[in-house]
């Protein structure tokens, strides 16, 4: 290169500085935007990684159902990697602070507050110095965040019958500080738990000494090897996966060890139990035998007694017989004696009579003898009678004596018999009792046998289960709450970066190419001159190459330097609203810088080459002659006389001019359309995100809130709960809401299965909108069956009538036919009735949620306080408290949108300026002519800007149209899986995008007005171009 060329080149730059600057500016903007946005996700990851590394964020968190003992810790130590191990305690508990109850994760503060991993940073206050002091993490919802230091809190166990003292030595702590922990990078979540409403509100750190557990509950591990990888990159994930395999292996071994111990113990216990049972059996058998033997012995005795009794009976009978005989004898003797006496008395009476008679006849003397005899006879009779009487008495007495003699043995015998009979009865009872006892004993033994069998079965199952244990639960960082979301956000920015700036770059490249080719055209005379002077083509090419490429490269460098700081900064700043990642690092991405630089330089070089090659192919003489001005041509519109004739003169000129410079027209329209589309996308993004809250909380969720209840609530409890609500005019619908997972190409998507009773299904339609967004069809759970939310349907790629595959376990899949796709923006749901659920899952739903409606907002606090007292109510969410939650996200997006809109605006400004500038330069003679003809400034402006205005309008129109598609694409890319952004673009966004474009166009026109005013007629008309 000789000096002339260099001089000439620099003079060229100096004389056309505005063109040089415009190439510079366009490349700076295009490359800056491209490199800046593309570098942003890297900056996000880099900043986060820096923060994680600075505070030693663990790579893994291990949890074991058995906890961890020193041996476990030791076993990790022995793993063949350089690492830091931090065994710690945690327990999810309820924290009480005045009336307030929060579900928190209580974590241990190591001795001396010296965290080997997951370090904390103090936001306010200080670290605990005493065991009864605590610090809380900065995600403290209450507005009195500044005054909580110094407050006293009480912890209670998470489960109803658990005792806080099983875990902690002390349940009351004083808050001394607020901290930020690297473990929770997101403001959004602190993870889930199985107590309370299932969501952890924040973390509380208490000195380790308070924990009375004998085993660690979690171990954090950081591997030096993973430090060198940037978080959220595939490199990190892959390296971490390799290490995770080792940990997994170790975990399995350790768990297997624990399992063996447990199984052994269980076996021992079982054996003992069996032994005990055997012993018991023997004992029972013996006891039974003893009892039996006793019974038998008793029986023998009884039999013997019976024999004796029988003998005695015979004897007594004999005695009685003798007695009876004696009695009979006595009786007959007495009777005989009586009979004799009577007879004798009769004889005496007869003799008396006879005597009387004789006396009469014979007198007494004569009969003295007889008298004597008679008296004797009477005497004898009396004597006889007395004797008989005596005999009778004597006989009776004797008989009585004999009888009395018999009586005693008789009673004895009777007693004996009674005794015997009693004995017999006792024996028989004994026999029954024995039988009963034996049955019972046998039953008990059988039961014990069964129990042992059950225990055997249980043990077998336990062994099975234990052998199925996956080992430790290993959470890599993706399992840390909020960690992966940040990465996803970075990915999202990356996906925007893929689509957005490329588009931007293309527009910039197009504009650059127009500028460069215009430059070459303008310089054709000079090119010819150089050629005529004998300069080689390459020298001439070099000049223009140098001109354009230096502008582009300088612009790119400037763009890279500024863009790679500015855009990441704004994006990091935006994400700081949602994430507690304080580090903001915006490293220059050298690779990206080189790529951008080479791409822009290469592109422009190609454009220069293509434009100039055409010129160079011509002969110098030809080049030095002015290029014939672009010929006038009739446009197609002129053929339609009906339209054409109606156009004013100036409109005709405008129309013809637009079609005269087709290429520029195209560039302008594309450029403006692109900018409008970008702006519309920005505004659309803003309103679609803004709409989420509005749509979800006003259009989709029609209830006033819900309360988490114990699903075991009985009817009485429910009635009480309903009564509380009805006091405030509210009514309830019970529902099951259960997290489930559905499958799609090995991808697992979480969703909420919501179930209501069939008879409440119609009413449920008043609590949630079940309407298809596209068709407007309204659904009912009873008629349509399972209803799926729109985004989930999209993720699963299913339509009405399609099948959603819900995986309940590795092997168990439930297929649900979809009866309707309903509009929904946050979370995924599949909803169905109880009968449908039962049909599909074979179990009844557990109703753990009660949605309510009809409660006035001003009653919320009072109702909430009332519900707090209900033991079976776990927590209440009011819709009215909810809608504000999106503000942060919207603010963040506002920033992104400001970036987009201002970048797009700047681009459109430059595009328009540049193209207008070219337009004016190309037509400078025409303009000068107009001025000579006495056109006023405004008329000259209008002559040029009418075209611009028309092109702007066309570009805006196309831009709005294309913006619909671009925004649809961007919105879908930027969307989080769990959320569906609003799909509708508000009319205002169209208006704004159009207005901003038109405003920019007007600004360019205003600026150009001064340029036009300065156009020198004499000068412009003098030159022969």
């Amino acid at each position, binding site marked *: 290169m000789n000096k002339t060329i260099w001089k000439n080149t620099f003079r060229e730059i100096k004389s056309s500085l505005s063109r040089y600057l415009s190439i510079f500016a366009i490349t700076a903007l295009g490359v800056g935007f491209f490199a800046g946005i593309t570098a942003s996700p890297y900056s996000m990851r880099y900043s986060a990684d820096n923060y994680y590394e600075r505070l030693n964020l663990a790579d893994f968190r291990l949890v074991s159902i058995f906890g961890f003992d020193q041996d476990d810790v030791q076993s990790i130590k022995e793993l063949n990697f350089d690492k830091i191990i931090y065994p710690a305690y945690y327990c999810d508990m309820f924290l009480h602070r005045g009336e307030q109850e929060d579900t928190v994760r209580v974590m241990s503060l190591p001795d001396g507050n010296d965290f080997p991993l997951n370090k904390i940073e103090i936001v306010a206050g200080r670290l605990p110095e005493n065991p009864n002091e605590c610090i809380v993490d900065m995600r403290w919802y209450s507005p009195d965040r500044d005054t909580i230091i110094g407050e006293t809190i009480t912890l209670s166990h998470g489960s109803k019958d658990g005792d806080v003292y099983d875990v902690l030595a002390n349940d009351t702590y004083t808050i001394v500080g607020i901290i930020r922990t690297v473990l929770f990078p997101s403001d959004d979540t602190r993870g889930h738990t199985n107590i309370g409403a299932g969501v952890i509100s924040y973390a509380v750190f208490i000195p380790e000494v308070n924990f009375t557990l004998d085993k660690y509950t979690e171990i954090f591990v950081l591997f030096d090897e993973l430090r060198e990888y940037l978080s959220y990159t595939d490199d990190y994930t892959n390296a971490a996966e390799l290490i995770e395999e080792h940990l997994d292996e170790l975990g399995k071994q350790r768990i297997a060890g624990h399992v063996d111990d447990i199984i052994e113990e269980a076996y021992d216990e079982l054996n003992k139990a069996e032994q005990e049972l055997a012993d018991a059996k023997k004992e029972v058998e013996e006891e039974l035998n003893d009892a039996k033997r006793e019974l038998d012995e008793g029986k023998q005795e009884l039999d013997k007694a019976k024999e004796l009794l029988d003998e005695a009976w015979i004897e007594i009978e004999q005695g009685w017989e003798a007695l009876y005989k004696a009695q009979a004898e006595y009786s007959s003797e007495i009777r005989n004696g009586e009979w004799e006496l009577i007879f004798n008395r009769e004889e005496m009476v007869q003799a008396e009579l006879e005597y009387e008679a004789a006396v009469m006849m014979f007198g007494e003397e004569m009969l003295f003898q007889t008298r004597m005899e008679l008296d004797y006879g009477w005497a004898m009779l009396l004597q006889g009678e007395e004797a008989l009487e005596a005999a009778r008495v004597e006989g009776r007495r004797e008989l009585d004596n004999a009888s009395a003699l018999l009586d005693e043995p008789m009673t004895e015998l009777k007693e004996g018999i009674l005794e015997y009979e009693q004995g017999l009865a006792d024996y028989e009872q004994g026999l029954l009792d024995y039988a009963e006892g034996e049955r019972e004993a046998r039953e008990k033994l059988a039961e014990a046998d069964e129990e042992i069998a059950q225990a055997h079965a249980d043990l077998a199952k336990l062994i099975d289960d234990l052998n199925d244990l996956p080992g430790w639960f290993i959470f890599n960082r993706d399992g840390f709450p909020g960690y992966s979301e940040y990465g996803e956000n970075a990915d999202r920015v990356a996906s925007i970066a893929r689509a957005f700036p490329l588009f931007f770059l293309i527009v910039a490249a197009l504009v650059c190419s127009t500028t460069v080719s215009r430059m070459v055209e303008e310089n054709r005379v000079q090119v010819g001159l150089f050629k005529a002077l004998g300069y080689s083509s390459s020298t001439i090419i070099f000049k223009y190459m140098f001109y354009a490429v230096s502008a582009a490269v300088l612009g790119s460098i400037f763009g890279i330097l500024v863009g790679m700081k500015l855009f990441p900064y704004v994006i990091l700043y935006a994400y700081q609203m949602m994430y507690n990642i304080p580090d903001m690092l915006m490293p220059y991405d050298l690779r990206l810088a080189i790529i951008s630089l080479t791409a822009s330089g290469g592109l422009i070089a190609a454009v220069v080459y293509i434009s100039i090659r055409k010129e160079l192919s011509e002969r110098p003489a030809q080049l030095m002659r002015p290029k014939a001005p672009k010929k*006038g041509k009739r446009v197609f519109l002129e053929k339609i006389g009906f339209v054409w004739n109606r156009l004013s003169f100036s409109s005709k000129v405008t129309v013809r001019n637009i079609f005269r410079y087709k290429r520029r027209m195209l560039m302008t329209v594309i450029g403006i359309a692109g900018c409008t589309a970008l702006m519309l996308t920005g505004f659309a993004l803003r309103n679609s995100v803004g709409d989420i809250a509005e749509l979800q909380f006003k259009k989709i969720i029609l209830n006033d809130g819900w309360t988490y209840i114990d699903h075991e609530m009985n009817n009485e409890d429910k009635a009480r709960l309903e009564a509380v609500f009805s006091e405030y005019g509210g009514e309830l619908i019970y529902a099951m809401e259960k997290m489930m997972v559905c499958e799609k190409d090995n991808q697992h998507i979480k969703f909420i299965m919501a179930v209501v009773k069939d008879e409440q299904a119609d009413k449920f339609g008043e609590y949630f909108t079940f309407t298809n967004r596209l068709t407007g069809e309204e659904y009912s759970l009873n008629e349509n069956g399972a209803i799926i939310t729109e985004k989930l349907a999209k993720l699963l790629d299913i339509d009405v009538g399609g099948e959603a595959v819900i995986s309940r376990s590795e092997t168990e899949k439930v297929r649900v036919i979809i009866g309707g796709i309903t509009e929904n923006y946050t979370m995924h749901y599949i909803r169905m009735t109880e009968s449908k659920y039962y049909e599909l899952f074979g179990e009844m739903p557990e109703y753990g949620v009660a949605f309510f409606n009809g409660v006035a907002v001003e009653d919320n606090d009072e109702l909430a306080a009332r519900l707090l007292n209900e033991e079976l109510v776990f927590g209440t969410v009011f819709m009215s408290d909810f809608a504000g939650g999106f503000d942060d996200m919207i603010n963040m997006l506002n920033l992104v949108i400001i970036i987009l809109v201002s970048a797009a605006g700047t681009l459109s400004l430059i595009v328009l300026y540049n193209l207008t500038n070219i337009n004016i330069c190309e037509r400078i003679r025409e303009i000068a002519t107009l001025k000579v003809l006495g056109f006023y400034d405004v*008329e000259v402006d209008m002559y040029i800007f009418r075209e611009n205005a028309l092109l702007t309008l066309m570009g805006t129109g196309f831009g709005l149209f294309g913006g619909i598609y671009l925004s649809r694409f961007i919105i879908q890319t930027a969307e989080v899986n769990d959320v569906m952004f609003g799909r509708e673009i508000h009319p205002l966004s169209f208006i704004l995008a159009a207005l901003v474009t038109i405003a920019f166009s007007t600004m360019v026109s205003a600026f150009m007005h001064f340029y036009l005013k300065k156009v020198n007629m004499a000068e412009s008309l003098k030159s022969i171009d």
Partner: protein
Amino acid sequence: MGFITLSDVRKTYKMGEVSINAADGINFQIEKGELAMILGPSGSGKTTVLNLLGGIDVNDGGSITVDGANISEFSRREMITYRRHDVGFVFQFYNLVQNLTAKENVELAAQTSRDYIPADEILEQVGLSDRAGNFPSQLSGGEQQRVAIARALAKKPKLLLCDEPTGALDYDTGKMILQLLWDTCKKAQTTIIIVTHNSAIAPMADRVIKLKNSKVSRELINQRPTPVSEIEW
């Protein structure tokens, strides 16, 4: 005082350190309805004087009076209005708007004017009614110059300024254009000033002003101008 009076008109172009006097105290007068011709070698300041007269450029010193108005004191807007209504320009390279047909080029000037000759009529006058719908690129140089003249005349200017109107044309065409200008001058009583370095055509003018080194070197009035048809060069 003439219809056009220049007195001590100065124009200096500054190019960095150097300043060039393109008009260095120029004095002359032209009467209404005259066909004046400004002659001079290249660089003598002919175009400069014409531009100052036409309100395309502004003089630094002296005064230029046209029809009683001192145009050198005109504001920017007055100057435009002056160009719009009072002056017609014809250039060496025609300066037609390429994207407009012959008729439209004429209309372009006419539509800005209060009082104008309809495009068809004026094209008829210059003998181009059958080419009215053609674009400049479809016309010969002479035809283009005729369109340019038609455009300049359409707004009935007080003053028609022609800078080398025949410079790019062949002999016959040049002659035809000169004839047209002469006819215009005589029929429409339009004052015409023609700038040329070709002194051979000077006899057709009523008044000839010769410039040299940015000064008027000689001024002569031709009582009996030679008809164009008789002029040869």
